[in-house]
Structure formats: C-alpha cells, structure tokens
C-alpha cells in the first residue's frame, strides 16, 4: 500500500480531495509488436476530476481499457481501494464500482432511454431469473427502488422529455447524455468517461461539462476522463495526466501542465501531422 493513500491534496480551486482510490504502477501494454502503453504510473484520488489527455494514438483509450479491465497489461499493477487487483473480467470490475462510457456510443439503440439507463442498474439487482419472471414480491420491490434511482438520474440529466424515446432516434449529444446516465445508474465509485464531448457543439459541451462537475459534486463520484478539447479539460479537471506515444510526459494540476515545456512541445505546440 502506498503512503500517498492517506494524504489529502488541495486543488487549484481550494478543494481538498481525498486519498488515492486507484493507482496504476508501471503499466506496459503491447499489441504484438506495438507498444501502446509504456511504463506508466499515476493515481486517481477520491472525489477528483482526473483528466487524461494526449494527441491521437497516445494510448489514452488503452489506458482506460486497462483500468476498466478490458485489456490486461503485460507488465505493471493496478491497485484499487488499496488492494492489488487480480486480472478480472469487465463485469467483475463493474461490480467493484467502476463504470464507463465509450468513445463511440454503445447504447442499445432499439430500447428507450429509460430502459437503457435501467440496464446500468444490473449490479444492484439480486433477484434471479425466476424471481424476475414471477415478479411479485422481492423482484417487484427491487424494480421499484431501481426505477426510483433511474428517475433521479433522468431528472438530474434533464432528459425527462426523452424518457420513453427510442435511443436510436436521438441526436448525438443526447445519446451521449443517456450513456452518462447509464454509467451513473451503477452508482460507481469511479466513473470513466472516454471523450464525453467528442463531436459536440459548444453549447452541448457546456452542458456536458456542467453535468460532469455536478456528478462530481452532488454524488461525490470520482471522475477520470479522456478529452481532446484543452479548454474544457483545463476548466473542469483537478489534475491532468499527459500522454504521448504511450509514455507519460506530464502529471499535475492544470496550471502546472500549462507551464510544462515538454507538454507544450509535444501536444500544444508542435503538431504531429
């Protein structure tokens, strides 16, 4: 267990965020001959908004997939809640309290918003298939309490109007919001967002930023997000990790990252294409 786990950390806006809840140590991930992630370590503290940024192909999404348990790194360790995590399946990780959204929306297109968000509650359902089929009794009670939670999320994300709308018919920005809703329905400790604002216009970005901050503030959810829009990242993140070509080239508060010459050269200054 690392010492850092008990320290608190004061952010730029004067908030103190909790001890480390997730730590990745010396992660190396290879696909055949390609090294996607090379020897990366960083931590995520409870209650913070942690951003992972970097140019295209830097290995950000791979990093998220490692945390999420979808990829198993060849080297390195993932510590979650002060325990070394053994290799797991993604659904087991979901049960541990990590939820995510995807870069390319992965909703059930033929189902309504409500049903989609309901699926996010699966980690909170215990009644078996027969109890569900019989429905009366425990399963009914469980569904009511889950529905209540889902309705709170619908209210929170202001998507009452599309409650019963088929998700496939919704515009992109709203689908992203529904996906966030589904992730929130799991009541995660740690919420992973893969480019939550990709392809959005300015207004949709503002809305989404507000929702992310509100989630963080109201539910105390720790958020780790990947994002391209530097303005957004610098505004909402407490701490930022910068990756380039699979390596970590910076880690710190937005202010520190802004001043970091390596970051400026690699990401903000010199173009890769």
């Amino acid at each position: 267990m690392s010492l850092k786990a008990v320290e608190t950390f004061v952010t730029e806006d004067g908030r103190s965020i909790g001890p480390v809840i997730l730590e990745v140590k010396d992660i190396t991930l290879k696909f055949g001959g390609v090294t996607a992630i090379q020897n990366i370590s960083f931590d995520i503290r409870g209650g913070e908004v942690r951003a992972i940024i970097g140019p295209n192909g830097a290995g950000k999404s791979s990093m998220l997939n490692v945390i999420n348990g979808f990829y198993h790194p060849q080297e390195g360790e993932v510590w979650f809640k002060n325990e070394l995590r053994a290799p797991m399946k993604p659904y087991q990780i979901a049960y541990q309290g990590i939820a995510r959204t995807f870069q390319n929306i992965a909703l059930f297109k033929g189902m309504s918003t409500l049903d989609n968000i309901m699926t996010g509650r699966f980690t909170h359902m215990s009644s078996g298939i027969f109890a569900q089929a019989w429905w009366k009794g425990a399963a009914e009670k469980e569904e009511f309490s889950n529905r209540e939670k889902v309705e709170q999320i619908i209210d929170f994300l202001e998507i009452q109007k599309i409650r019963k709308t088929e998700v496939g018919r919704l515009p992109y920005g709203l689908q992203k919001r529904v996906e966030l809703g589904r992730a929130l329905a799991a009541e995660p400790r740690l919420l992973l967002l893969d480019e939550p604002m990709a392809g959005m216009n300015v207004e949709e970005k503002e809305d989404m930023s507000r929702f992310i901050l509100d989630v963080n503030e109201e539910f105390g959810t720790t958020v780790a997000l990947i994002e391209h829009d530097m303005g957004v990242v610098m505004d909402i993140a407490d701490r930022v990790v910068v990756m380039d070509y699979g390596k970590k080239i910076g880690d710190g508060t937005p202010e520190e990252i802004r001043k970091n010459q390596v970051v400026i050269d690699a990401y903000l200054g010199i173009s890769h294409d």
Partner: protein
Amino acid sequence: MNSSFRGQLVVDTLPKLLNRNASQFSNSPAYRVKEFGIWRSWSWSQARDEINAFSLGLLDCGVDQGDHVAIIGSNRPELYWSMVAAQSIGAIPVPVYQDAVPEEMIYILEHCNVRFIVAEDQEQVDKVIELSTRLKRLEQTIFLDPRGMRKYEKSKLTSFADVQSAGRKNEKKLSILYKKRFQNHSSVDTCVMLYTSGTTGKPKGVVLSHKNILAASKASSEFDNLRHDDSVLAYLPMAWVGDFIFSIGQAYWTGFCVACPESAETMQTDLREIGPSYFFAPPRYFEGLLTSVMIRMEDASSIKRKVFNHMMEFAKKVGPKILDNKPISFYERGKYIFANFILYSPLKDTLGLRNVRVGYTAGEAIGPEIFDFYRSLGINLKQLYGQTEAAVFITQQPDGEVRSDTVGVATPGVELKIDESGEVFYRSDSSFVEYYKNPKSTKSTKNKEGWVATGDAGFIDTSSNHLRIIDRVKDVGKMSDGSFFAPKYVENKLKFYPTILEAVVLGDKRDICTAFINIDLTAVGNWAERNNIAYSSYQELAAHDQVYDMIARYIKEVNLSISKDKMLSSCQIRRFLVLHKELDADDGEITRTRKVRRGFIEEKYADLVKALYNGASQIETKTEVTYEDGRKGHISATLEIRDAEVFNPELEVA
C-alpha cells in the same frame, strides 16, 4: 357560498378561500406535479398545511406587512403556495418572468423594493446573486431545488423546506402574530402585483386587489360553469395575469385541481396524461399543434389520408353545429358518432384535449381554419378578450355563440363603452387599483368614474352583438372619406393564407386601400412544384402570372369577408402588387420580431406606392438590398399591378 367560516363572515380574500376549500373539499386534489416520472398530488387540506407552514416560516424570516415577495420560476406547486402564503401574512407576491435576463429583472425587483425572493433553482438564484449588490433591501432568497448550490454562501440563502420546517417548529410562538396578520387584511388589500411587459417604455406594476381577483374569478367561473372537479394544466408563465387567474383565482374560487408539468419540454406529454377539462393556449400553440398533425398525416398511408380528409371535411360541416346545439339530421349524427369513435376521439386524446370542456384562446387573431379545426373535432374552443388591468376578463364568448372573428360579450359585471375614436373602455369590479408608484399612468388609463382605456380599437358587431377588436388605437387611421382604416385587421386576414408571408396595406388619409404582398417562398415553391411551374428565383416566382392569379383570388375572398362589416368595408383592397423581394429585417423593412415598419416601407418604395395610386398597370423599379454580410446591392424588376374585385357592403348586409 360566501357563508360564514370560523367566525369570518365573508370569504373575501384568497387565503380565506383556501381555508374554505380545505374544509369543504378537504380530500379532493388541489395540486398535482410530475416529479421523477410520477404524478404527486396534494389535497386541499394538505395544501393548506403546506401553505400555512410556509407563511409561518416567512414570518419567522421577518416578512412585514406590505412587503413585496418576488416569485421567480416555472410552474411549481411550491411557488403557487408561496404566493398564497405571502398573502396570508399581508405581504404582496410579485411573480417575475423566469426567462428574463438579470438586466430585465433588476428594474422590477428594484421598483417594488423587494425584500424576499422565492426562486425555483440555481439558474434563478444565480441571477439574483448577480443583482444582489444592487438590491439594497434584499434579505433572503428562498430556493426550491438545492441542486448545484452546495458550495454557495448560505447567509442569504435558505431552502423552501427549511423555511417550512422553521415555521412548523415555531408555530406556537408565531401563531398570535399570524392570526393578527391574517385577520387584518381584507378585500381592498393588494392581492398580487403583476408587471405588464410593456412594448413601449418600462414595465408597469399593475396592482390588483383581492376584490379584483375574486370578482374576475367569480364572474368567469360562473360564466363557464367551472366545477370543482375540473382540472387545468399550469404551463403558462406565472408572471402572466392569465396564469394567476386560471391557476389561483378560478382554482380557489371553484376548488378545481391545478397540475404542474414535469418541465417545459414535456408539457405535451403531461397534457395528455392529465387530460384537463379547462384549457387555455395562445393561437400560435393551436397553430403549431395543427401543423404537426398535418405533417404527420402527410406521412401516413394513402388510405388513412383519404379517411382523415373525408372525415375532417365532414367534421367541419357538422362538428360546430353539434357544439352550438343546432339541429342536424339523424344520418349526420350517426356518422359523427362513428367518425368520433374511429378518428376524432383518438386524435383529441393524442393532442391531450379529449376532456376539454372549456377551451380558450386569446392574445392575437386566430386563423378561422385553425379555429374551425378544433371546434369541428368537438373541442369547445372559444375566444376571450382581456388584459392585465382587468384581471384578464373583459369579454368572452358564451357557449353556442362562438365565432372566429369576435371576442364575445362582456363578462358579467363588466360594462363596455366605445368612444368616438373607436377605443374600447371597460369598467368593472375587477379593474385594477393602480399602477404601482406611477400615478401619472394610472390617471391616463383609468378615469375618475372607473373607466379603463384598453388602447384597442373595436366595435360591437351588429349581427352577433359581440365585441370585435380591430387593432391598437394608435395604428388605426382614417381614410379620406372619414371611415376607419385598420391595416392590421386586413393584413391578418391575408396572412391566414399560408402562401402569403407578409402583407402591407396602405390607405391612411387616402381614398382607396392598396396592398403590397409578400409570398412565402416555401409554400409557393411547393405549390409551383406540384403544378409544374418552373422558376429560377424568388423574383421570377413572385412575378409569375399564376401566382398573381392565386393572390388575386385570395384578396377577393378577403374583400368579400371585409365587405360584410359595414364599419370596415372601405378597407377592401382595390389594387395590389406582389413584391419582388422578401421584406427583411436587415433592410429595416420589418423589425427583428417580424413586425412591419409601415412608414419606412412607404418611404422606401415610394415609386411603387405612387404607381398603386396613379392607375399604372406596371412599374419598373430598382431596390437596394443588404446582404447578410452587410454588403449592399441592387435588384431591378418590372412589377405588375392588378386591380382586385371589391364588393358592395349594402348588398351583403340584407
């Protein structure tokens, strides 16, 4: 109904009505709201308890008699309760439009010296905080929804629930003061202050007493036989007098239930779920709803479309007769019942209007097509005429006497008078007390005998004895023979045709009326496509012979309908032309809100105006246009001028 209650002889204020309802209708629903996908409801006695707790809480905060309490937010039961709670302890509620920007709000909040504000959510609280340095007397802001405000400085912020629980906790201590305040105020005290939006100058605070509100509520409720099992959906802005009367005045008078939608966007779904029996909406709402029905019918299969068209044609013939209790044949009745079963009733259900027993629209002219559509479905849609100063009701249409072009007869208790300039005056118990801190405007609007000037020109229609409103007084002119010239009245009639986008009628101080017509490119373009008419530009389409023929036909129809009004028959259009360019705000021809700038147009197109009046049959013209990027250019065109068919009024009157 006004019998004694707990020793009070008369029920002459809204809080007293609340007490009456709480004992008379104690278990029937008073408020509903959709939250988290479920309709919650409060009975009258529960509502009374909530309101009492909040008024005690307000006392606890230090609200004085005569203080103004601003209410900012969308329709929530808690905000309605806040208004009545403030009244119970002698304070005056001032609802404010929730979509106003801070700069617009500051005038009202400063003008009424606000000390307490009840705001719905973070959005509204943020505006108040932005203004707080300028609001010297502001003490507390009370909010309903705490979301997003966890980190706010709380010294001047309290939640609604906290105020209520403070009130409940200190009930013993405060109850003597509460009783004193409650008994202290009577019908002459201010019930509510509503700011009129004021198209010119600063908004004015209209002071309405309990007597005003109760008189309006009583008269209008009795006029339409509103019952205590009726229901309404409160979705119109709370700062608008209509919402105050429908959702508080009439609701308290008759004891019906007020339902609040989940959010503004879900209004249509909520309307369908609630199925109100009493409904008000502005004309553009009905217009939008009809358009959406028509668009969806276009996508339906051809058999469905044929059935729909056939049955709607039939409904137009028979539906209004049924509503007006006029005789129809046995066959027609049977067919209507059948059509009702397979089309009208499901359609009304989809629109959320199935249970509507009394429906109203007002505010602007409604197209007869639109009006007839709803009436033929069996929806008792009527028109009323009113304003804030009258606590809404001046005239309304009685059941069975509904027409699309009148606004009805005087509401019981209202006297009407039309002066020689054509301006409509009224006098009633419901007419306002004064404009707050504005004796000058009060004096110019309301005279010593209590007659209030509406600023609208109108006349009593001889065939129906209904009032008809023509236009704002300042826009009504005189023609050279001394008869009325009401351009907007004629223009509105023209604009009911979908192919006519804008019309400018000229004739003030002249001997005949003429018109500029602007075609609607989308509508006429569609028509051209269907009729295989080729065109390459707006200008070419506008000058097309068949377009001219179509417009001439419409003008003929409009002329015929105008000729039936003796007062306005001289407003018939004698000559017209179709403009070669769309009137544009960039060129200054219309305002950003699409109001025609008559004077400017007459000046800019002086050559065209001249041609309209000198009998020419065509005119060459060159017009300056401003492009979107600010560059200027010119277009030249040769415009045809046509004579329109006019009708002799005497022949039609008979």
